[in-house]
């Protein structure tokens, strides 16, 4: 099993470790609910070193990123980050990812751990006709995420980067705990916070100094369990659950990352066709009305007929309600529409509700 450079620290903190995408990762420390609430109300620290990092450089770097993704990378100034996707010609997902603009000849792509090998093969396999070089830097990078309303308060004393001036979805280079890092105001929780990347051989001081500074303020280390409940409350996509190479970007309700006016890109003709013809199904947020917990792969029924399976589902620790995401026929996606989820031998009532399920106060 692969180990991140923080592995021993997790074990010392008493984490329950599990195998995830070939990595030995903490699933929880104190408990998923406490960890989830800490991120919503104080702060939490995640080891996300299993994520993949790919560098694209060259004269045509911008044109190449534009060809592979539906969002408009030309809008990025050096220092900005964008959520986007690697699209197939069918406008389905190779992966979703973040694009960091270093300059128009250099982009840093951050992809999902589960997909690093596949993504890199895809990225390296589509360079024909572009003057670019690609490099899979995943092995050399460690990454931690510091998330929650106290993230800036905790991180500022540890870094020479002026965090107050850093807007959401911007990044800067600087030192954290004396170690060279790239820090972005991004995350996967629906809270304010930072993601910190480094190629240091020993990044442990970053982790330990944040724990030391944050613990008196209520910070907890957070495992993959709460990472999943946090991202789902905020309706952030999980590849393999909510989006895949079988779901199109429009079906996934991610029209906001599609910028048709930017020029041609992989999948654009299918997107235009779906826009003209209308969608048959759409990823929809629901709440279970009857008592129970919706989970991935539980069947969804409309009028007694199975229409799909739950993509993501959980008891939402902050909202204290059972919620989930499911692809429903387009005519049953209006808020308030009732349908059923099969849980064991029962058909339980569910209802379409607005998303994101959770949105932090004061978010612009």
């Amino acid at each position, binding site marked *: 099993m692969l180990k991140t450079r923080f592995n021993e620290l997790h074990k010392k903190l008493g984490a329950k470790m599990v195998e995830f995408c070939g990595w030995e990762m903490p699933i*929880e420390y104190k408990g*998923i609910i406490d960890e989830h609430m800490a991120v919503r109300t104080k702060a939490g620290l995640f080891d996300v070193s299993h994520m993949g990092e790919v560098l694209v450089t060259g004269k045509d770097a911008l044109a190449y990123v534009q060809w592979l993704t539906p969002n408009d990378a030309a809008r990025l100034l050096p220092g900005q980050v964008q959520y986007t996707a690697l699209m197939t010609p069918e406008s389905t997902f190779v992966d979703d990812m973040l694009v960091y603009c270093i300059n128009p000849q250099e982009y840093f792509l951050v992809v999902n751990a589960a997909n690093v090998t596949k993504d890199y093969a895809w990225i390296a396999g589509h360079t024909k006709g572009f003057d670019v070089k690609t490099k899979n830097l995943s092995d050399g990078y460690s990454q931690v995420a510091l998330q929650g309303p106290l993230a800036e308060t905790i991180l500022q004393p540890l870094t020479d980067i002026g965090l107050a001036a850093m807007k959401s979805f911007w990044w800067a280079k600087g030192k954290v705990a004396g170690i060279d890092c790239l820090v972005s105001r991004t995350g996967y929780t629906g809270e304010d916070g930072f993601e910190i990347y480094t190629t240091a051989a020993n990044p442990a001081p970053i982790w330990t100094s944040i724990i030391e500074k944050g613990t008196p303020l209520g910070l907890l280390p957070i495992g993959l369990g709460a990472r999943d*409940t946090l991202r789902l409350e905020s309706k952030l996509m999980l590849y393999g659950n909510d989006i895949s190479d079988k779901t199109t970007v429009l079906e996934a309700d991610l029209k906001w990352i599609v910028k048709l006016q930017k020029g041609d890109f992989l999948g654009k003709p299918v997107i235009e066709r779906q826009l003209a013809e209308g969608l048959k199904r759409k990823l929809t947020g629901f709440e279970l009305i009857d*008592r129970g*917990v919706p989970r991935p792969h539980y069947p969804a029924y409309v009028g007694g007929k199975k229409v799909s399976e739950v993509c993501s589902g959980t*008891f939402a620790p902050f909202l204290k309600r059972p919620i989930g995401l499911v692809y429903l026929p387009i005519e049953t996606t209006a808020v308030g529409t009732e349908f059923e989820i099969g849980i*064991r031998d029962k058909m339980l009532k569910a209802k379409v509700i607005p998303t994101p399920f959770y949105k932090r106060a004061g978010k612009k």
Partner: protein
Amino acid sequence: MYPKDFYYTKEHEWIKVEGDEGLVGITDFAQHQLGDIIFVELPQVGTELAVHQAIGVVESVKSVSDVYSPVAGKVVAVNEALAQTADLLNKDPHGQGWIVRLKIKDKKALESLMKVSDYEKFLEGLEA
């Protein structure tokens, strides 16, 4: 940690015998493995259970697991408090977190269950 007068199963249920009846729950080890428990599906009062038949389902944030009856018997009561406070299984697994009360069909069946010393040895084996 584990009450001396309970009987235990390899699936980490316990039964506390009171006359002809027994309270059934899951052990501290089980609740720790499951993590934060958020939902317990309870049986109907009056249900006749064979040994090792599913009594109900315990769901934590992360997982779903069946609870089995340690012995044959009839459900005479369920812990209604769990409908609102399923986390009693985390907080007090051997006390307020009981799940059902059974009328035990044949008390001789208890002899096939583990006593506390055997259960603790069994756990040591799992952790080794």
